[in-house]
């Protein structure tokens, strides 16, 4: 059950973005969550979109916002396989924004323009080219299965509403975001951030 937002609940412009593939079972978490949240009523300034496409086009999408209305926070949700996490783990953190070396960024751009859609690629490429807001909250779900299909594994399916609730919180509460630990991409476990 989502909260009844008031128009003053969000003081910054926020984009909530799902990243993933449709019909790829647990790896569809990003698009599923975006689909669910997109139809909800949000405070002014909060936009929910499926950004599951070429990150270069994502840059261009973000840069299309008027200069005085650029997003100030992104809340990005995706299924990501990280080592050492149990399937169904939900992890949320503030990305520290540290980028890899140029060679890796260029590799990410190559993958971007040739069709690879992945959370890390999207964040690295959009940050490198300055399109991403300074404040980025990442909500990751550890998938259990990687196969064709439109259903989630039980362990991931159970977490979908939890994920939606986390995103509602981080999209609208600067205080909640402040309480999150800053962490590098893929460094969630080491940073000891919230998991459930």
């Amino acid at each position, binding site marked *: 059950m989502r909260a009844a937002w008031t128009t003053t609940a969000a003081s910054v412009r926020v984009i909530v973005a799902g990243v993933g*593939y*449709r019909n*790829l079972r647990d*790896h569809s978490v990003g698009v599923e969550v975006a689909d669910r949240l997109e139809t909800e009523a949000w405070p002014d300034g909060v936009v929910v979109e*499926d950004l*599951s*496409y*070429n990150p*270069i*086009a994502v840059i*261009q999408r973000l840069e299309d916002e008027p200069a005085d209305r650029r997003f100030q926070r992104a809340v990005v949700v995706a299924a990501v396989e990280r080592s050492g996490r149990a399937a169904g783990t939900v992890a949320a953190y503030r990305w520290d924004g540290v980028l890899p070396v*140029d060679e890796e*960024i*260029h*590799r990410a*751009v*190559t993958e971007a*323009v*040739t*069709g*690879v*859609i992945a959370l890390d690629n999207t964040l690295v490429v959009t940050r*490198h080219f300055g399109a991403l807001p300074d404040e980025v909250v990442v909500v990751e779900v550890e998938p259990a299965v*990687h*196969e*064709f299909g439109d259903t989630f594994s039980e362990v991931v399916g159970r977490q979908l509403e939890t994920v939606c609730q986390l995103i509602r919180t981080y999209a609208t509460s600067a205080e909640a975001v402040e309480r999150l630990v800053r962490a590098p991409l893929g460094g969630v476990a080491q940073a000891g951030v919230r998991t459930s």
Partner: protein
Amino acid sequence: MCFKNLPIEFDAQGKPFLRAGVANPYAPTTTAPRGVPAQLSADKVEELLRRNGYIKDLDFDPVTRVAGALAFHTVADFNARKVIEARSVATLFRGYEVIMVGRDPRDAIFITSRACGVCGGVHSVTSAMAIEMAIDCVPPPLGILIRNIALALEFLYDHPLHLHLLAGPDYSSAMVGPTNPSLLARARSTEAPRAELHGFRTMGELMDDLNPLSGKLYLEALHMTRVAREAYVLICGKYPHPQTIVPGGMSSTITLSVMNEMFTRLAQFFDYSKKLTAIWDDLTEFFYTANPAYKQVGSRRAHMIDTGIFDHPDAYDATYANAGAWGERRWATPGVIVDGELVTTDLHRLNIGVEEFVDHSYYEEWSGNGQRQRFPTDPAGNPLSPYHPWNKVTKPRPQGQSWKEKYTWDTTPRWDRQSMEAGAYARLWNTAVARKVPANPFIESTGTSLKLRLPKGALPEMEIEWKVPEVWNAFERNRGRAYCTAFTALVALNNWMAAMDRLKLGDTRTSTPFEIPKRGEQLGVGFWGAGRGYLTHHLVLDRGAVANYQIVTPSTWNASPSDRWRQPGPYEEAVLNTPLLEETDDPKQFKGIDILRAIRSFDPCMPCTTHIHSDAGVITREVNTCACGVDDDGG
């Protein structure tokens, strides 16, 4: 003579037939290709490696800055500064042929699109054309014109991307400086001959702006991909997997407003093409002048194959019987080039010469063990090989890698048993030589060149000319791709003008209704092209469902392994001919830049996979490449 290896001859009417008296005419032992290069045997290479310290393995795994998963194994002689063994390895199984069996053929339009995250639309159209042929459905003129424009726009996304994001950095100061410092020093003091077009005073400045991530040309190419994509989604709904391709045309609603919005984007490629061709002319000439040995980088026989693309609405009738006629009316002429000579422009002859082998590929043979050849002839009665795609059965068999046995997921397509390459440049070459391009104000085929008249933009109206090159190598592939950007933009312009004429006549119909027959067996083939060239989908329908589906992409040809006659695939052959021109004598410092230039000049696009689980234990990286959903125009 069209075929010099396969025993196919022609009667007085030009009808092909198998030469009499040849037992098992397609048996590999009966018909071996003559006069082709051969790899050293794996045993010989192993012996050389054992006996000579200056001969070393040099592996590139993965080859970066290519689409998809490619690895490349070489053995290099650092004394002679040459490569003595080259093995191209596609590390992923594609599997669309397996996925398609048993499905409604219309699924192919959407499923095969996912073979590529760049050129999904070309697969959609090729599958639609295969279905059209199988079910006898002809698109209306506007549907054909709009389809041509859509695909041209897709290529206008693809070519800049390759030239300045993937291949371009190989010629950047960031790359040339560490590998060939004297060359970069020379570039800094060499004035760029075409500075007035591209704006770079010296070759060094030009190389600076080819630098990845920061170079102006790199960033400009990223921007131009947006321009092409925006135009594309106006008629295709989204990129790279369109929603408006159907058998019998397009489901798009085409209005004057759509056409005008599209034109404002298309027009940006006229000036961009002038700049691109000037850049690649200057780069090519600079390297040739600095060291003529660069002409050997990526060199191989000028053996090319292309299906042609962009149909003429007065000619295309979707039949196999007339494919030879409508193929030759295309804006890009189909053809096969052997040693630089055009040997046919007939799609029938092109088609019947194609065979696919799996001697060094992770598949089981489907022919030669007493199995019945499903189709001894094509629908026109021309002879077909048991190795032809219509006869092929995809039987994956993962196993360990061995240069002597199997080492790649790519198959080995051959035409007349020869290793052919595909590419945008093959499109140019055929069209330039054949002199069959439709009458128009912008493109002229001279027999030895293509003259391209680009309209005025910020730059003045200009005629540029792509000439059939005297040498065939990595530089000419890139230069050809730059000129093909101009060619493609002008094909789009011609088709845009023709489409406007249809609209002015009140003709807005873009598709023809159809039904999938539920009885009998039908054959179809889509002869089309990707940005990288040749593309075919061969389809067999049985009682309304797909009984066989075979895709041959440009990179199937280019990345193919050596064949049973030890004839190397195109990447392999190009690398074997590449001198090692890096300015270092220390193998540990060696970056392999010339080898990588050779490979990347083909614009490799390794068809990608979603999910392969192998009980045999081959571990593959799972990669999903479909930029689904981008730029949905909401329409």
